[in-house]
């Protein structure tokens, strides 16, 4: 296919966008998302809903949990993956990322390098998930949306995410790199 060699195609679909382009687009889209959905952009609260919906499928009753006593969370219990705003947003992110990597023809299923890598990924995922819940948000909900709305919690989160990333990278080099 010839058009994939054109400089414009390369610039838009192939090469990574600059940090500036990314920042401006994020700012515009974040504002639009807040205006349309009425809620600051977040990602991980929805994962708790996904977990709850799946638990419900297997007959578990989660409606008594503290988390679902909050009105917004209780409302989500009666919704589905396609009627809950946050859920649709997350599906959009996954499909968008897939589309972007396909357009750049950079899709690749990566092989596992070692079991150390599996342990590191699983541990990291669990810690991130747990951390995101006790902090009431991930780096999007608590940091990005927090800072964008000039809330103090976002800035405090920023200090500690750098601290955490620093400690995390030290641990990575010490224990998980051979």
């Amino acid at each position, binding site marked *: 296919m010839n058009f994939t060699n054109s400089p414009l195609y390369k610039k838009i679909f192939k090469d*990574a966008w600059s940090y500036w382009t990314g920042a401006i687009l994020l700012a515009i889209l974040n504002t639009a998302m807040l205006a349309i959905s009425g809620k600051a952009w977040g990602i991980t609260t929805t994962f708790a809903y996904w977990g709850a919906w799946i638990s419900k499928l297997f007959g578990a009753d989660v409606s008594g949990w503290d988390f679902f006593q909050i009105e917004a969370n209780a409302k989500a219990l009666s919704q589905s993956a396609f009627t809950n705003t946050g859920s649709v947003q997350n599906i959009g992110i996954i499909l968008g990322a897939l589309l972007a*990597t396909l357009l750049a*023809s*950079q*899709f*690749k299923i*990566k*092989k*596992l*390098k070692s079991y150390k*890598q599996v342990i590191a990924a699983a541990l990291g995922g669990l810690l991130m998930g747990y951390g995101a819940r006790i902090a009431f948000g991930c780096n999007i909900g608590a940091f990005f949306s927090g800072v964008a709305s000039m809330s103090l919690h976002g800035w405090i989160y920023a200090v500690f995410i750098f601290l955490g990333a620093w400690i995390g*990278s030290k641990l*990575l*080099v010490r224990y998980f*790199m051979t």
Partner: protein
Amino acid sequence: MAEYRLDCLGEACPVPLIKTQKKMEQLKVGDTLIVEIDHSCAMKNVPEWARKVGYNVEIEEVDDGEWEIYIEKTK
């Protein structure tokens, strides 16, 4: 003027960058290191670091989502 290869396939950020930095220390001036990566974020930070240090860098896309970064130790 030796040529070395560093297999970083399957490694996520920041592992390829750290491995590259460590490997480059062992190389002699004039040697070339070929870093094999399949993580697009390493495609950004590895060449960025190497260019900042002042090394010669070339990138080749060898397959879908797979690259080889040629880094020549110039000093």
